């Protein structure tokens, strides 16, 4: 009996801790969204607990930044969405093919190449920032979409992710395809791809989230407003003190929405990506 009550108290403590800490973690975001729906004058007047409750709900802040000529946030969203989608699309093709080649089609030198690719994963992006800028500049890509896309298509991390998954596909499946007269290319398309949907989903989501948040690179290669991305766009809004707070809050919320949607709908793959990279590696 004593054991039972002790367990119950433990459960209540855990529940309360989760709720209190959970509020602390969600509070700044709750404030961001609530403030984006408030008229300007209320944002810094509603302090304390009222900061987290909507009042006089208005969508003016959103309309202002999306549909007026003054701030072209809609265009920034499009720039990010387009370039990140291209990275995801080409990245899935290029990296999965490469991993398949290195794991299943082994050719002279493929083992060494794999080791080099895994070693490349440790290079922090910041340490190649300047020479990468010079390389991209020599292609004439500054302030052009390819600067935001092409350097990030091939990814050592994604190749590694695909490799881990492909290694787990039983050899019998491929051998059966081979006996049926399928070429290695057909085997990839008919056997490997349909059996690897989870890893494609994981790679796509991780790539999208990572590059949607990119800041430093677009800051230096996409200086022109016509190609500005969301993350750099909100920084400009923030640095430009003539802009109103409600509008910044609306911009911050809009920047966050795509990732929230991904998290809600693909939570399983998203979390799998985070953990599979770690626990096995």
């Amino acid at each position, binding site marked *: 009996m004593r054991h039972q009550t002790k367990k119950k108290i433990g459960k209540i403590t855990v529940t309360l801790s989760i709720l209190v*800490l959970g509020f602390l973690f969600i509070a700044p975001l709750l404030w961001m969204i609530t403030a984006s729906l408030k008229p300007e004058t209320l944002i810094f007047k509603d302090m*304390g607990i009222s900061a987290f409750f909507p009042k006089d709900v208005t969508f003016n802040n959103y309309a202002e930044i999306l549909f007026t000529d003054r701030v072209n946030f809609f265009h920034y969203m499009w720039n990010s969405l387009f370039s990140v989608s291209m990275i995801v699309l080409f990245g899935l093709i290029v990296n999965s093919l490469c991993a398949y080649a290195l794991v299943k089609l082994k050719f002279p030198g493929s083992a060494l190449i794999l080791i080099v690719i895994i070693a490349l994963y440790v290079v922090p*992006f910041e340490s190649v920032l300047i020479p990468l800028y010079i390389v991209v500049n020599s292609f004439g890509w500054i302030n052009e979409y390819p600067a935001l896309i092409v350097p990030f298509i*091939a990814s*050592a991390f994604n*190749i590694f992710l695909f490799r881990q998954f492909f290694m787990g596909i039983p050899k019998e499946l491929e051998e059966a395809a081979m006996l049926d007269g399928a070429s290695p*290319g057909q085997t990839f398309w008919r056997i490997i791809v349909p059996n690897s949907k989870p890893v494609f989903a994981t790679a796509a989501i991780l790539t999208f989230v990572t590059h949607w948040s990119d800041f430093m690179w677009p800051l230096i290669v996409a200086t022109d407003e016509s190609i500005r991305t969301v993350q750099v766009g909100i920084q400009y809004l923030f640095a430009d003190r003539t802009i109103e707070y409600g509008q910044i809050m609306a911009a911050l919320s809009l920047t966050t929405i795509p990732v929230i949607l991904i998290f809600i709908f693909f939570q399983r793959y998203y979390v799998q990506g985070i953990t599979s990279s*770690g626990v096995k590696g």
Partner: protein
Amino acid sequence: MEKTFEAVPSTKKPMTYDTQKKWLGVAFSLPALVLLFTFLVLPVMLAFVYSFMNYNMLNPAGKEFVGFDNYIRLFQDAIFLTSLKNTMYFTVLVVPIQSAVALGLALLVNKKVKVAGLGRVFFFSPVVTSMVVVAILWTFLYNVDSGLINHMLHFFGIENQPFLLSPDQAMNSIIFMSVWQAAGFQMMIFLAGLKEVPEELYEAAEVDGANVWQKFRNVTLPSISHVTGFVLIITTIQAFRLFIQPYVMTNGGPSDSTKTLVFMLYENGFQFRDVGYSSAIAVVFFLIVLLSSLILKKALKQ
């Protein structure tokens, strides 16, 4: 691409399956390899070369090799030493705090209570928010006069704090925010590790009369040690890369108190256009990150 290769055996002498495999392997891996070489391997090599050059982007024709001049200048540069110190300070504090918070949160949401799933979503929610968004948001929250945090402190009778405006508080404020933003990420990794700890181990410990702390110390920690090692290494690498927070929130100030290695690298490369000097910072940064993760890996093995 497949089609052309399929056509080969039928027109010329038939290729064996194995030769076909080899050539296709080369063809399939080539796009990724060319891209990786152009945008990663080549830049790495260039960073090393440029670091030994006097090279300004405004005058590319005048570049010349100057030996170790950039490195000598670097270690005599007071701003570099400050940036190095600040980066180390951030890393040394963020890594243990963030990992401990993440483990604590993981232990909480790993319990069989109704709100565990909700907790997971709440603790993870700052992770889906990009660092730029978080940095802007917290600049408002940290505001001396109108910030929500000072308002809350006021409620508890604490007077207004300058936070980002004070050289003594700015970096600590950034640390606090960074832990809040990223702990949920590490929590997910810990959680995956905790799920793999066999239930029997806890039951056995309970039979032996172990209390909560003893169970944690003798069962949980040893069972997830490989996960802990991984978390410590990725958090360390992440911490060294600190840039967005000082760039957005403090511009490296006040009085250089939040200037970091990457901030300095960016500043020299893209504001002063000094490729040579900036590359030297990049090389030193790379070596620090590499050495730290190697040392950490070695230390964790024991």
